[in-house]
């Protein structure tokens, strides 16, 4: 079944088409949500919500983005929405509580954070952008499509997130570290590649 046939089938509520769409995309959606939430059970719940929303609103899918980009968008929005609702899981960046939970308290707490703990302490949108780019391998244009922001913002948020991550991992960028924002436009040399 081609992607067009799967979309047409899902629009008719065809269960086989829905199952195919799920099977072709669930690994990447689940992987992203596990990393965003740090909780496989919560990620499973969000995966269910993502696909139910996708099946329920597939009539609105206009084909401008790829199907997987569209699913990423639903999943990321769901995860961000959930983080906003569930404060204990969604502490603000720099929250001392999050840092102390993530690593053994010491005079050098930040240095002890491992990568996942450091990722979880990022601004949720920055974290999503970082994971979409480096875990899922999406290019800047596709990441921008998923999170609904300009490509320049993707680049500047990536810079900011990298700088913060390295600081948390105690790999302090030197005095001349990356600047937190980029004003210049990004030139895309390659076509959007969605895994």
């Amino acid at each position: 079944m081609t992607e067009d046939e799967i979309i047409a089938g899902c629009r008719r509520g065809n269960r086989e088409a829905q199952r195919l769409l799920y099977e072709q995309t669930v690994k990447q959606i689940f992987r992203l949500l596990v990393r965003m939430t740090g909780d496989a059970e919560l990620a499973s719940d969000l995966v269910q919500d993502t696909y139910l929303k996708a099946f329920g609103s597939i009539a609105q899918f206009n084909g401008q983005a790829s199907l997987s980009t569209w699913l990423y968008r639903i999943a990321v929005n769901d995860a961000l929405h959930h983080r906003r609702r569930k404060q204990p899981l969604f502490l603000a960046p720099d929250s001392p509580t999050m840092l102390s939970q993530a690593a053994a308290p010491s005079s050098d707490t930040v240095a002890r954070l491992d990568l996942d703990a450091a990722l979880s302490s990022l601004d949720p949108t920055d974290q999503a952008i970082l994971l979409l780019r480096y875990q899922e391998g999406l290019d800047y244009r596709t990441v921008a499509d998923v999170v609904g922001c300009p490509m320049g913002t993707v680049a500047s948020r990536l810079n900011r997130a990298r700088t913060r991550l390295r600081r948390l991992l105690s790999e302090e960028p030197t005095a001349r570290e990356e600047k937190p924002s980029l004003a210049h436009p990004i030139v895309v040399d390659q076509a959007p590649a969605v895994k």
Partner: protein
Amino acid sequence: MRHVELILGCHQMQCDEIREWLGAYLDGEVGEEMHRAVESHLPVCGDCSRELAAIRRLHEGIDEAKAVVVPSALWNQIEARLDLSSRRNFGRWLHLRPALAVAACLLFMVAGAYVLLTTNGGAGTAQAATVNFSALLDDVHFDPHGAFNRFIALYHGRAVDVSDAKRHAHELNFDLPQTLPGGFELQYAYAMRIGDNNAAAGEYSRRGELLGVIFHPPVHPEQYGTHQDYACVVGEHRGHAVAVGEWRLVHLTDATTCHCVLSRLDESTELPPILKAVAPELKSTGSHHHP
């Protein structure tokens, strides 16, 4: 090195600008001009080269933790919610068409009256939620794992730790050991909900061969669809079973728990040690055909 950098014109301002672009450069997201500028700068600037290496390590670190296993029951859970949603939508459809709803109610009442008149009048059938094994039995021959997972999802099953499954269904007597006699390994423990009661299940596998165990309170009548159950003896326990090809769904019930085992094992020789492992407190004389 610093000497070389100075000779070739590497200075603070140039480094600052280059570093803004190092991430995008690694990502292949810079234009030709900037690409050339970075390429010519890196060989003469140790600091920026180290910065590039550090960013690359960070990217690789984020990319590393990719291996996740999607829970096998996830699609069944989605499918169960899709079915539920369809039923709700039908309810909403009726709500918006009151005349049809009234007609449907009347039809339902007439059909109900017919059933009551043509059976024993419904005496003694105060119905708790039933445990409907019919779909599981229909499909087990063709797709045992899928059929078992759909059954689990039908009763709101979610994969949990064994300790959580026991806590969830603490009123039931059962165990879910990691390994069962015969070499079956526990794949998933499930917490379930049947009607108003908690239930639990376990999914075991031996080189791909399924063995499923389900534990629920004996208050729930069981349905087998078109399949017939028969009395059986497993070790020192009397119970009942349903056979579908080489598959057996065996039930042994005591005062607190119905222990159901779905397997291809022989009831008289292979099943007794399995039963002893998953139902260590099953009373030897108490097993019977439950409601």
